[in-house]
């Protein structure tokens, strides 16, 4: 029963971690893309540099969500309490 409880809690916490961990990066990516679009609209000749920087920044932001995913996977597959 205890092991079952731990598994249930683990799955719940993994889902919570991914869900809340994805929340912040999603907002941040939206803002970043919006700012980049505005900048490209204002300065179309700098679109190349802007989009390259945007991709790098998006990857950086996405890393935060990936951290949450890694934690969730750790909880699911490498749980030390199971």
């Amino acid at each position: 029963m205890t092991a079952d409880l731990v598994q249930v809690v683990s799955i719940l916490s993994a889902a919570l971690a991914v869900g809340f961990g994805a929340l912040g990066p999603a907002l941040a990516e939206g803002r970043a893309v919006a700012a980049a679009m505005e900048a490209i609209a204002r300065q179309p000749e700098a679109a190349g540099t802007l989009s390259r920087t945007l991709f790098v920044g998006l990857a950086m932001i996405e890393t935060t969500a990936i951290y949450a995913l890694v934690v969730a996977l750790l909880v699911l597959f490498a749980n030390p309490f199971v």
Partner: protein
Amino acid sequence: MENPLITEPLFSIGPVPITAPVLGTWAIMAVLMAGALWLRRRLTSQPDRVQTVAELLVTTLDGQIRDTMRRDPAPYRSLIGAIFVFVLVANWSSLIPGMEPPTAHIETDAALALIVFVATVYFGVKTQGLRRYLASFAEPSWVMIPLNIVEQITRTFSLIVRLFGNVMSGVFVIGIVLSLAGLFLPIPLMALDLLTGAVQAYIFAVLATVFIGSAVEGGHAPSAAEKQESSS
């Protein structure tokens, strides 16, 4: 579902267990080395298409290193360039059926990050001298010494986890989708995986350049990329 965090040894040579990422790395190494040798034999001053691509790669790499470090790129070119090429090819090797990217396993990423860490210390000591390199940890004041040391370690870990998480999550998501649908549905995710792989390879190389550059330059202000890194 298969546990993505555990690598099972396929076979062992003597006492050394050989796992799938090591085998995949060997395959990638063989391909890259053969390609390098083949290209080297046909290097002429009248470049054909392949050589033009290679030269474009090297020129772009030099430009990036020069932009980031404001130094002659020659000592750092092979390290940064080889890391970039290897990570890129490794990330894209997920397209080959039955092949799992070596970077989807934390040992490969840890090995790469370890090399970057050692290279950072090596170039810092080589350029500034041991005393001045160690003194650069006391910037801007001695209060920052533990923080700076911790930053060295955490940024290496974040380097590991970023690459590992991205590639592994891509592989994992594709595995899940594949177990659900099987046909056509994984294609957009694979395309996204390609993009992520390329971007992550680029980011890994850029961050390695930034780390080495900051170690080489000593107490200079951190560049924009490093700020991004410390905030993520």
